[in-house]
């Protein structure tokens, strides 16, 4: 649940507290929105260091359930307003991308992708 993710990451909630009971099974991490559009899956959590309006637009388009900004980055009012409108919760964690991913993975948040072999990318079943 998003509530547990917030605790594991010691994260502040920038917007979307009403979604704390949302169930999230998969996580992805990228600063490349092109990769989010190509390799994420519906309902996944997105961890990113990229802070702009396109992050929220991309999350909405790709059915990302919630966005976590790493390294203590705080979204601007404009970004928060857009996320609220699109009903996407935004969190801010003090941890680095590496540590935030490690903490969530070790607590059982699954990856959206299987390892890549010989250039082929497969989604988890």
């Amino acid at each position, binding site marked *: 649940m998003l509530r547990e993710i917030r605790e594991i990451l010691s994260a502040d909630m920038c917007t979307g507290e009403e979604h704390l009971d949302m169930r999230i099974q998969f996580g992805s991490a990228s*600063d*490349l*929105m*092109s*990769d*989010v*559009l*190509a390799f994420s899956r*519906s309902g996944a959590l997105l961890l990113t260091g*990229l802070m*702009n*309006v*396109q*992050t929220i*637009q*991309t999350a*909405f*388009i*790709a*059915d990302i359930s919630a966005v976590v900004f790493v390294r203590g980055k705080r979204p601007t009012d404009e970004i928060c307003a857009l996320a609220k409108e*699109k009903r996407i919760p935004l969190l801010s964690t003090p941890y680095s991308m590496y540590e935030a991913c490690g903490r969530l993975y070790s607590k059982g948040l699954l990856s959206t992708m299987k390892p890549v072999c010989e250039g082929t990318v497969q989604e988890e079943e």
Partner: protein
Amino acid sequence: MSASFSRSFTIEGRDFLNAGRASTQIKTILKELSVDPAIIRRVAIASYEAEMNVVMYATRAKLKFTMSASAINLEIDDEGPGIPDITLAMQEGYSTATSQMRELGFGAGMGLPNMKKNSDEFVIESAVSKGTRLTMTIYIN
């Protein structure tokens, strides 16, 4: 549902502030029409990738969205530099993006291949110095 539903949008090149507006509106329309969420996601991704390409590379474009009982069609017709080598542009990882585009999280060379992946039918035609025309169809059933 009636025979078909259609909406047209104008996308301005370099307008990074409004980039994604057309595709988010299309997504909202499809949600209101209770289309299968998996189909909506494919249409939205294909449309958004195309919209970002127009914003990044072209002068402007018309995006026409049409929905019939059996399929959703996206036509994006732009005025722009065109693509000299479509086979090369369709390769994953090939990109001519500038650093500004990359700072926004785009320009990884995944756009066109990802549009094709999310479409059931994908047609690209381009004329150098004139523009590019994309036609993408996603079946509903």
